[in-house]
C-alpha cells in the first residue's frame, strides 16, 4: 500500500511540524509575558485603591457577626426612635 505509506509520512510530518509550531508559538508567548508584559506591569502599575480602613471594618464586622456598620447605624437609630416612641429604658 504505497498510498497508505505516503499518508503516514504526511501525517507524521504534520505531527512533527504541528507540535514544534505549537511549542514554539506558546514558547514565544512565554517570552512575551516575561518581557513585554512584565515591563508594562512595572511601568503602569494598577492604581492603589485606598481601602479607607476597609480591612478594619471587615474584621470588626466579622467579629460581630457580619453586620455592616451602615446597618448598625440604621438599627441604632431605629432603636433610639423605638425607645422614644415607647418611653422605655428611661
Amino acid at each position, binding site marked *: 500500500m504505497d498510498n*497508505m505509506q505516503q*499518508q*503516514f509520512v*504526511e*501525517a*507524521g510530518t*504534520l*505531527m512533527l*511540524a*504541528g*507540535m514544534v*509550531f*505549537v*511549542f514554539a*508559538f*506558546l*514558547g*514565544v*508567548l*512565554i517570552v*512575551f*509575558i*516575561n518581557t*513585554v*508584559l512584565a515591563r*508594562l*506591569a512595572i*511601568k*503602569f*502599575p*494598577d492604581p492603589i485603591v485606598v481601602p479607607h480602613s476597609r480591612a478594619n471594618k471587615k474584621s470588626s464586622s466579622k467579629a460581630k457577626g457580619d453586620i455592616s456598620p451602615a446597618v448598625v447605624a440604621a438599627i441604632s437609630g431605629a432603636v433610639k426612635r423605638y425607645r422614644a416612641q415607647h418611653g422605655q429604658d428611661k
Partner: protein
Amino acid sequence: MDSLTKLWLSTGLANFELGQIVMMLVGCGLLYLAIARSFEPLLLLPMGFGAILTNIPIAGFSEAGGLLHYIYYAGIDTGIFPLIIFMGVGAMTDFGALIANPKTLLLGAAAQFGIFATLFGAIALNYVPGIEFTLKDASAIAIIGGADGPTAIFLASKLAPELLGAIAVAAYSYMALVPIIQPPIMKALTTEEERKIEMKQLRPVTKIEKIIFPLGVLMMTIFFLPSATPLVGMFCLGNLMRESGVVDRLSTTAQNELINITTIFLGLGVGSKLSAEAFLNVETLGILALGAVAFSIGTASGVLMAKTMNKFSKDPINPLIGAAGVSAVPMAARVANKVGLEANPHNFLLMHAMGPNVAGVLGSAVAAGILLALVGG
C-alpha cells in the same frame, strides 16, 4: 376518502425509514445525556433536538427552504456561529492565572499532542475496511483532542462538513466525560507524593497586562499563523472587550444574550448534520474511538510535561495541573483540583490549573490554524 389517503400519506408513519428512526433515538440519547446527566446541556440539548427534527420524514427541516437548512448555511457553513461563540468565550475568560505563571503555557502546548497523535491514528484507521479518511477528514477528527467545541465545529465545517455531526457529538460527549476519563490517567502517571505537591500562590496581575495580553496573542497569530486569526482574533476581541473596562455593555452582551442566542442556533444547526447517511456508518464508530484516544493522549501528555517541568523548575509544579492543558474549560481545571484535594486536603489547585486550562484553548486554536494552513489549502 381521497383526503384520508392524502392525510395518511402525509403522516410520518407512512414515510419512515429505518435510518431516520435510529437517528431520532440518537437524538433522544443526546437529550438524555443533556437533561438527566447534565452532559454539556447547553449544546447537547439543542443538538439532540436538531437531530430529531432533521430526521423527520417529509418535514424537510434540512432541505432548501427548511429552518435547519437556513441555520446551517447562514451560521455554520460560513463559520459565523462558532466565531461568535468564541468571542463570547473570550469575554468570559480571565487570563490572570496564565499571566501570573506563564510556564503553564507549555502544559497547554504539550496537551495538543492529543490532536496530532489522533491525526496519525485516523490515517491508520484507513486499514479498517469501510473507513476512508482523507488527510482533511483526519485533521477535522483530530481536533476533537483539542477539547474545545467551537474550534472543533469551526474546523470541521471547513475541512470535513460531512463529518461535522459525528465530530461535534464526539467532542462534546468527551468534554462532558472529562471527570470520568481523566482521573485514572492522572493517577496512573503520578505518584501520591507528586499529587500532594502544593504550589506557590500566584502573584497579582495588573490591568495593563490583561489588556495587552490579548493584543499580543493576536499579533503573534498574525505574524506566525494567519489561518488561526478568525478563531484567535474573535477570542481576543472578546477578551479585550472584557479587560479594557470601557465597553462593559458590549462585553456583558457578548457573554450573555449574544452567546445564548448563538448557542441555540449552533446546536440546532450541528444537530441538522446528524442524518442517517452521515452518521450511521463505520466512520462514526472510528471517530468516537479516536475521540477517546485523543482525550486520553492529551491528558497524558499534559501530565507528563508537568512532571518533567516539576523536575527542572525552581517552584514546585503539581503534575495534575498538566491534565488541564486539554482545555475543556473549566471542567478540566476542576478535575485537577478535585484529584489534588483527594491526595492532600489542603491542596487547592483550581487557580493554578486555570493557567494550563486557558493555555489549552489557545493551543488548540493554534493547532486548528496549523491544520487549516497545511491541509486546508
